[in-house]
């Protein structure tokens, strides 16, 4: 079990140390410059993988929440918390890299006409509230279930936000920047996939490291109780 725990940090550590610098190298030295957007398009290889990684982390948080409600074991509660936590960290990066790209390619820091970024903003606000909820409840069963239910409801919110933004947008503001167009050249796609794999492994690394930290903290607390002669 212990060696398994170590592997769950070692493998993503190795992968992310290789893949993320590789993405930088591929993005700047291998892929041709985008005909339309020029150099600024390079941020695509970071911004989009970060956004997808953030969704994966939130999904992991929600999945673990469902598992907690089903199994009722504390470890799923911790996983759910760590997933949402990680999703929020990546989400912050999305909201930082998004405007940089928007400014470079559209000339504005924020584009209320862009579907993805608006949905993401709703989701980000929602999951930020998760921490307020969690930390204003006393530790225990009640906090674990309330956090789990809240994390799980986000799964309903994502598709509904997409639909709502779409309904409001295609009709109110015309979609100015269409995401369609010519298919990506292979070199773009490959660099993007390497970037995505790199970000994913970094996320796994962060999650498993935080999980280890949390478990160790719980174990220390338990040992302290034993040392004081209280019930373990």
């Amino acid at each position, binding site marked *: 079990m212990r060696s398994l725990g170590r592997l769950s940090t070692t493998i993503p550590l190795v992968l992310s140390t290789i893949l993320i610098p590789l993405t930088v190298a591929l993005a700047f030295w291998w892929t041709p410059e985008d005909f339309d957007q020029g150099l600024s398009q390079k941020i695509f290889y970071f911004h989009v993988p970060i956004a997808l990684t953030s969704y994966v982390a939130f999904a992991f948080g929600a999945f673990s929440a469902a598992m907690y409600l089903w199994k009722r074991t504390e470890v799923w509660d911790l996983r759910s918390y760590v997933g949402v936590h990680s999703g929020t960290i990546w989400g912050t990066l999305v909201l930082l890299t998004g405007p940089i790209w928007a400014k470079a390619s559209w000339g504005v820091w924020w584009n209320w006409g862009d579907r993805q970024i608006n949905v993401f903003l709703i989701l980000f606000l*929602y999951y930020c509230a998760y921490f307020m909820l969690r930390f204003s409840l006393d530790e225990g069963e009640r906090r674990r*279930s*309330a956090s789990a*239910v809240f994390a*799980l409801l986000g799964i*309903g919110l994502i598709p509904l936000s997409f639909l709502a933004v779409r309904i409001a947008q295609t*009709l109110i503001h015309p979609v100015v920047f269409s995401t369609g167009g010519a298919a990506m050249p292979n070199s773009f796609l490959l660099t993007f996939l390497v970037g995505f794999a790199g970000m994913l492994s970094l996320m796994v690394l962060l999650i498993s490291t935080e999980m280890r930290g949390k478990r160790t903290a719980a174990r220390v607390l338990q040992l302290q109780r034993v040392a004081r002669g209280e019930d373990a």
Partner: protein
Amino acid sequence: MIPAALAIARVKFVLELRRREVIFAMLLFIAATIVIVHFALSGDTGAGSRAAAGMLWAAVVFTAVLGLLRTFAAEQEEGALDALLLAPIDRAAIWIGAALAQFGFLVVVEVVAVPVWWVLFFQAGGPSIGTVVVALLLANIGIALVGTLAAALALGARTRDVLLPVLVLPLVIPIVLAGVTATYGAFGEEVGGLRPLGFLALYDLVFVALAWGTSEHLLGD
């Protein structure tokens, strides 16, 4: 299950009739919000304007949050919540009852506020009232549902009153988006016919399902 929910909703209405704690406050609040938004937009909310439509939805959502702050307050103060939890009824009945009451409060407030909004901003050329009413009713269901859900989650939280708006508002953003779009449609703008209304109905269904599925874990043990 349904009779239990109805009984709980009835209790809340009777309490409200006797104490007049929530609805009156909601009415004053919605009036103040409309006035504030009107002046915040430098009075640019003339007849037929989109701003006037948006203002109604913003006011409705914020007013709903105000009402939600008292959702389980009576039960908690008098210790009735423990009794309800011990009662041989489905847990879902407790939040459905609370959501029904919340829905009723919202309807009462809107019955007063919407005609006033109408007279203030659209003496002529207002939106078609049928669409606005249907949109509001569907939105009320959604707001009452997710609001009661969030109120149940926040029960026992140290910062409950601060927490609740933070939990509810991101959840109702889709409702506002669709509601405003439906209201533009009511002005005769080409906004995809019944799609916004259909979306509001879908939103209600999704959250009924989610709330039902998790209701067992909602109110604590």
